[in-house]
Structure formats: C-alpha cells, structure tokens
C-alpha cells in the first residue's frame, strides 16, 4: 500500500523537502490518483511477485484448447485461430474512472503466461510459490496438464533440438549470456509509419491484404512454374493475418458493448455515463478504422500493444508516442478545443498507467535481471522529423508532465536530444530528472542517426524515425527498418572474456571448459599475449551467442509464427511472409554487452602491476584470483587503488577501452545477421550486474566472486571515478559513439541539493552541452540523495514511491533487492 502524505503539508513544503512522490499525489487529478493507486504492480520485488498477483490460467487454457483443436493447420493459421479464440472469449474489464481500456490478461491482477514459449519457463510457473489462483490445487492441476501438453513442443524446445549440442550446453550453463532464441520472448518493433503516419485502421489493412490475395490467387491458376510455389504458403499467412485483425476488431467491440451496458444499466453518475459512452464510441472506431482524436489514437496504440502481447511475450515496448499522437493532441487541444490541457493530461497519464499495468510471467533469471519491472519499456520522445526539423510538440511536454504526476517506473522515456530542442522542453526533461524519476535518459540524436546509418545502412529519412528498440538501441519504425524480433539471447556476459583469457578458457565457477584454450596465462610474457587471448575469447563468446540467435530468427516462422505482428506490418501485408522472416528486413541487430568495463579495468591492472611495474607475477595473480582474493587483501587493494581505472581521463586505461571496442567492432562486421547485416555491441547492464555477481569469478580489477559488477555499459566502477564528472565525460568521449558500437550506457548520480532551483537547471544544461560536444550518445541520471535512499532502506513503507534509475530502466527503490539498492547508493554522487 502507498502511505499517505502528511495532509497538513502544502505542495510548497513538500517540494522544499524534495518529497516529489507526495507532491505528485497532491497535484494529480482524482482520476489519476485512483488509477495510479489501484493498478496492480506486476514487476517482481527483488525476484518475487507481489502478494495477490496470479498466473493467468484463463488465457493459457483458451489458447491451448483452440491450438489442440486445429492441429492440422499450418503454424500461422493455427496460432491465429488460437489467438482469436482468446480475444473472443477471455474475461475483459473496465476499471472505475478509466477512459482507456485493454489488458492482455483476464483480470487486473493476473500475469499473462506464454504457455507455448518454453517448457523450462512453464516448469518455473508450476513451481513459483504464491501465484496460483484459488483454489490452488485445481490451478496446479491445470498448470500440470498444460505443461504436459506443451512439453517438447514449445518454440524454444524446437530451437533447442537443432542447436549445435556444444553451443546449447554452453548457452544453457547460464554463464555467458541469457535469453531465449525465439520471438516468443522477443523485442518486437511496430511499423508505426504504416499504421499511424499512414492513417490505417485494421479494415484498411484487410482491404490491402484482400487485394494482395486476389493478385496472388490469379497466379496460382496461371502458368505453372517454380515462382508460384511459395504463393500457397503466403495465401495461408494472409488468411491468418485477416483472421486476427478481425478478431482484434471484435475484441475492441466487446469493450464498446461493456461500456454501453455499464452506461445504460449501471452507472448513475451523469459525467461517468458520458465517459463510458465515449469509451464505447472509441472502441467501435478503433482499431477498425484510423483514429480521429487523441483518445482514439492512444486507444488504438494500446490495442496494438495488447494484441501483439497476446501473441508473444514481448520484453520491450518500442514507441514514440509524442510523434505519432502529437497531431491529435494539437487538433483536440489547440485547434478544435474539444479537450482542455488538464483533460489531455489525464488521458496521457492513464496511457502510461495502462502500460505499467501490463506484465507477463517471467522466469527467475529475467526477474532478477530486471528487478522491479516487467520489461524494458523505454518510450522515445523528442528527436527530429524526417526532414531534420525539431519534432518536439505540445504532447512531448504533456508526456513529461504526466510522468511526474503518475510516477510509474515502466514505461520510462528516452529523450532524443538535438541542438534545436527548445528550452521549455529541455526544462521539462530536467524537471523529471530533478523529481528523481531517473528518466528521461538523454540520447544524442544527430549522433545516433549517424550510427544507425553507419551500422545498418538505414537511409537518413528512415534513421530519423528511430525509437528505442529496448533500453538503448535505436531502430527505425519503417517498412524495411522496423525490427520484428530482437532476442535477448544475444546478451553477452562480457566479464567472462577476460576471465577466460586468464584461465585458458576454463570456467571455474561452472566448472567446465567454455571458451577456446588460449594458453596458460601464467606463461604469458607480455600484455600483448594476454590481449590476444582476450580477443579470441571475445570472438568466441559473441559468435556463439549470435549463431544461436540467427538460427532462432531464421526458424521462427516455422517454430512460432506472428500473425498479428505480420498483419500490422507493411512488409508482411505486401509479401504474405511472416514478419519475422528476414526477407526484406534490413537488419538492426546488436549484441548487448553486459559487464563490459570489468574487462578494461582488469586488463589495465594486469598491464600496469604485472607487466609494466613487475610488482607481481602472473602466477601470483592467478593464485589470488583462484582464492577469490581470500588472504590477498593487501594485493587486492593494490589492484583496485594503484592501477588506472576507466573514467578518470587517463589514457593508459582509456586506450585499452578503445582497443577492446575496436577489436570487437571489427568482429561485429565479420558476424552477420540473417539479413546479411552487422552485429555491433551495445554495452549496458539492466540489472545483470547483480544477476551475474555470483557467476563471474574474481578478476584483476579487485572484485571477488559475489560482488556486484559495475552498473553501466561504460560507467566507471562505483566509487572509482575519482576525478569528477568532467573526467568521466572525457573518458567516455574518447569512444567513437558512431563506429565503436551501437550505443553506450552511462549512469551518473547528481546531487539534488546542488541542482535545486534555476541555478541547478543552468548547471545541468551546461553539463548536457558538454556531454553533446564530447560526442556521447547516452547519459542518465539518478538524482535522489543518499539520505533519502538510506531512509527508504530503513522505512520502505514510507518511501514506497521513490524511483531510481537502475540501468536502462527505472524501478521503485523498494522493489529491488538489497544488493541492487546498495549498488546504487555506492555510485559516486557527482558535483557538476
């Protein structure tokens, strides 16, 4: 429960005390207050679901029933029929005071279960305590029945059977990466250009599909030849797309009918009755036809997200709401004046809450890696139009204002900064950061547009449409640029690169030979030998993960199938291919590089203390590492304090960072995705730095097995950035943020006291200018004091609404594990 603010305190008093969560409660409308407090939080606390959260058995059962029934259909059609059955029959609900509707589970407290995704996950669902709906025994029996049916025939089971056995064992060891190589658990981009810029509703798309079908059918009764053979499959796919699009329209009309029933039979309040009729009108309009106003536009977008998530467990939420809904805001608020700014703010705030509500069952490793949230839902704001002009609009501001009122930890925002952003918009970004939300993260738009063109050859106009595909990676929202499936399984636990280079490819934590044998490090004569061993381990590790993902991507249309996502994507509507098929997709892949900076600090420490200063031998170092530094404390502190550390503008170590990045960038071009494009790396961590704490062994940077790893993609180690924020920026600025990788995550903690008032804003603005001048692509801030965070540790009830930036996402501080909390407190608070 949310503790109540002291009623007798004024907004001003609460603002002075920087208790922003109480300020929000006092400032927001009654409606937003109700909706915010009534929403069921689906993010796990530490790694556990909150009391009252239940597994959604209704949808899983409906899906499986129909899947079984249509067993002779091809996979797209079979899935389409199963999804349609779910949408037609599951329980739907409308929460009091809400104006937007749609949830992918059947009740507000349920978490969706992707029953056809992975048997391993299904087994975890069975064993997860506390999430079975009452009566528990009946539910457990139902889950067991479903698990029996799906065992061996989920999407991931099918991929696992054809993986190289050695690759599979190493991947499944959990030591080198995570994720599932299937779009059942992917990050799926939406073709917003087709849907929103193209002003299409589902009926328009169905018409286009029908035209394509007619054309194709003409060919199947024409001259025989090889070129008509795959048309038969495409015809089935098109039928499947139509089937789900129609089901989507019917599903929305169920909400329309419910809202009308409520208005006509139950509701006594005249104003609410009008709202319900408006919901009915909205759901009769969208998704069938293109939206006409803000409410319809937001509702359409939300339906699209819900439908896609009914089809797959999407772990991200690529979106650019200010850009695509902005014209409707302008029309309603500024031109037609059918909405006041306050009314629009209510809609925008609720739009965020509706997304916050969404959550599916995730395995424990994912819950630990993404503590407090259900996926990395980073919505993109700001940026430029296709012609390069400033794209910020009044809705950009409304989203930033609404965020401070509803204070959800998911979705968060990434703001596309560029030199033409107006001061009033930048101020709104700063206010969100000052209010301790940890978002928006700041993204360097001109640089990232260039980066998208450099790595994947996206044309300028398309690159300018980019959204955050997950936490960080930019991806266009266009026909050939949109990425239908990015799987988290190309997520590398990079600290293993240096660990394996030091141990001849052997992993002492999991106890098996993992990487190639690159030589006994005790016999290395110089740093170069160690570095070359590192290069080989890096090549091996990234290649293994990429092979797995490429295979999963290539086989996905056969093993899983995405009729809904296909039906909402221009490429598939035109071609009749599953949108996950790489055909016609330009490719936008990246390897998420977790625990990256440990490589740099470790290599630098060995170079300095072993090879340059000759203070220790490699043998001594290896003995200390094997002992997890136990009994070597003085030596360990030497490796921490007397070897150069990344983030202090010291070329000795910064040059090693550049060498590592450039070797990896070279290899990124050797590895190809199924579309033939490159695989750049993207250093960041979500909360993988905690997840991997007990999986990465002792390292020469001074960490022991068990210690949290560094928190950011290129953030210095907590407490090791001793030379202040400019030195951090200068070190990070030595990286070429276009050609050295896809993006680079930098966490910074700033002092809320220093950044109070107008002076604080000006200081921050100057900092951002320097950040941009030095050519960094990303920075995000925590601006909550140590005092507040410590108080929250002692009295979590009272501080339940304090939000912090963990890594590529934000979370409520009390929802993350003690170890993660401590890791955040330990970060250096920079005076700027």
């Amino acid at each position, binding site marked *: 429960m949310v503790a109540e603010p002291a009623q007798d305190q004024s907004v001003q008093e609460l603002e002075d005390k920087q208790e922003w969560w109480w300020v929000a409660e006092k400032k927001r409308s009654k409606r937003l207050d109700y909706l915010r*407090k*009534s*929403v*069921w939080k689906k993010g796990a606390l530490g790694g556990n679901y909150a009391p*009252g959260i239940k597994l959604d058995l209704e949808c899983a059962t409906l899906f499986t029933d129909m899947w079984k029934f249509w067993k002779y259909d091809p996979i797209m059609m079979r899935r389409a029929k199963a999804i349609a059955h779910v949408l*037609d*029959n*599951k*329980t*739907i*609900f*409308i*929460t*009091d005071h809400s104006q937007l509707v749609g949830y992918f589970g059947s*009740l*507000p*407290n349920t978490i969706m279960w992707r029953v056809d995704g992975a048997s391993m996950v299904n087994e975890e669902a069975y064993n997860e305590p506390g999430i079975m709906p009452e009566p528990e025994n009946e539910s457990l029996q139902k889950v067991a029945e479903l698990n029996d049916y799906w065992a061996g025939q989920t999407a991931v089971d099918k991929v696992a059977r054809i993986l190289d056995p050695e690759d599979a064992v190493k991947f499944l060891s959990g030591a080198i990466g995570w994720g599932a190589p299937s779009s059942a658990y992917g990050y799926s981009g939406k073709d917003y250009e087709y849907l929103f810029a193209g002003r299409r509703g589902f009926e328009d798309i169905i018409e286009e599909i029908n035209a394509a079908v007619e054309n194709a059918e003409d060919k199947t009764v024409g001259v025989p030849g090889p070129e008509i053979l795959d048309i038969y499959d495409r015809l089935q796919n098109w039928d499947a797309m139509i089937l789900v699009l129609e089901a989507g329209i019917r599903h929305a009309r*169920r909400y329309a*009918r*419910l809202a009308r*029933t*409520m208005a006509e*039979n*139950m509701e006594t309040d005249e104003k609410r009755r009008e709202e319900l009729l408006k919901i009915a009108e909205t759901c009769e309009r969208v998704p069938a036809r293109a939206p006409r106003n803000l409410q319809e536009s937001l509702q359409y977008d939300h339906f699209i997200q819900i439908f896609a998530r009914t089809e797959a467990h999407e772990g991200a939420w690529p979106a650019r709401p200010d850009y695509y809904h902005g014209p409707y805001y302008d029309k309603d608020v500024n031109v037609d004046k059918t909405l006041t700014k306050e009314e629009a703010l209510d809609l925008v705030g609720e739009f965020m809450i509706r997304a916050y509500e969404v959550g599916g069952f995730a395995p424990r490793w994912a819950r630990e890696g993404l503590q407090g949230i259900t996926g990395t839902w980073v919505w993109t704001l700001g940026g430029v139009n296709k012609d390069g002009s400033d794209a910020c609009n009044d809705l950009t501001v409304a989203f930033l204002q609404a965020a401070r009122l509803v204070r959800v930890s998911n979705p968060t925002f990434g703001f596309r900064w560029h030199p033409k952003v107006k001061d009033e918009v930048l101020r709104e970004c700063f206010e969100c950061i000052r209010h301790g939300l940890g978002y928006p993260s700041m993204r360097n738009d001109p640089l990232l547009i260039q980066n998208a063109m450099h790595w994947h050859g996206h044309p300028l106009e398309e690159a300018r449409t980019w959204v955050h595909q997950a936490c960080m990676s930019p991806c266009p929202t266009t026909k050939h640029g949109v990425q239908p499936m990015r799987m988290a399984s190309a997520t590398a636990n990079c600290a293993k690169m240096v660990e394996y280079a030091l141990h001849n490819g052997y992993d002492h934590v999991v106890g098996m030979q993992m990487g190639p044998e690159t030589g006994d490090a005790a016999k290395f004569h110089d740093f170069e030998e160690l570095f070359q061993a590192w290069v080989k381990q890096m090549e091996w590790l990234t290649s293994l993960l990429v092979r797995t993902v490429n295979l999963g991507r290539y086989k996905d249309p056969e093993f899983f199938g995405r009729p809904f996502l296909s039906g909402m994507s221009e490429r598939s509507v035109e071609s009749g291919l599953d949108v996950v098929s790489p055909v016609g997709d330009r490719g936008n892949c990246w390897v998420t590089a977790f625990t990256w900076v440990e490589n740099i600090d470790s290599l630098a420490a060995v170079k300095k203390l072993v090879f340059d200063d000759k203070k220790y031998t490699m043998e001594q170092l290896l003995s200390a590492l094997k002992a997890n530094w136990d009994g070597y404390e003085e030596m360990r502190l030497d490796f921490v304090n007397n070897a150069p550390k990344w983030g202090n503008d010291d070329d000795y170590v910064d040059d090693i960072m550049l060498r590592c990045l450039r070797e990896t960038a070279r290899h990124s071009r050797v590895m190809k995705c199924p579309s033939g494009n490159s695989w750049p790396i993207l250093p960041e961590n979500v909360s993988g730095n905690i997840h991997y704490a007990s999986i990465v062994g002792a390292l020469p940077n001074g960490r022991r097995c068990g210690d949290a790893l560094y928190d950011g993609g290129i953030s210095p180690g907590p407490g090791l950035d001793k030379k202040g924020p400019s030195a951090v920026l200068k070190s990070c600025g030595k990286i070429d943020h276009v050609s050295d990788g896809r993006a680079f995550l930098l966490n910074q903690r700033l002092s809320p006291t220093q950044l109070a008032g107008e002076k604080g804003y000006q200081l921050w603005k100057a900092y951002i200018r320097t950040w941009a001048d030095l050519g960094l692509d990303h920075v995000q801030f925590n601006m909550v004091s140590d005092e507040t965070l410590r108080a929250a540790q002692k009295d979590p009830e009272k501080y339940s609404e304090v939000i912090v930036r963990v890594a590529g996402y934000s979370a409520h501080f009390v929802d993350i594990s003690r170890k993660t909390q401590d890791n955040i407190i330990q970060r250096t608070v920079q005076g700027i």
Partner: protein
Amino acid sequence: MSTCAECRSFFLREDEPGQGDCVRRVVDPRQAFYQSKPVREDNDASGCESFQKK
C-alpha cells in the same frame, strides 16, 4: 433448471441470437471494475454462485 438468460448479470447481444455477456461488478483488494465474459442465454446457471434472478 435456471439459465443465464434469467440472471441479472446477463445482457443479450443484439446482433448475435442466443449469445450474451455476463457483466458483473468486482471489487478486488486494489480496484473496482466491471468485468464481462461471453455466455449463452441457455447456459445452465444452477452451478453459478453469482446467479441473481432478474
């Protein structure tokens, strides 16, 4: 045997003969809402704890 058609929560769909929605108010520990689930009018209501005669 009582059927859903006789229940206060049953609302017949205009365009689908025999088919209706069971619409009920629910108050859970966090929020209040109306829920809807498809039911047929001739559905056996004898086992339904929420049945309320019209």
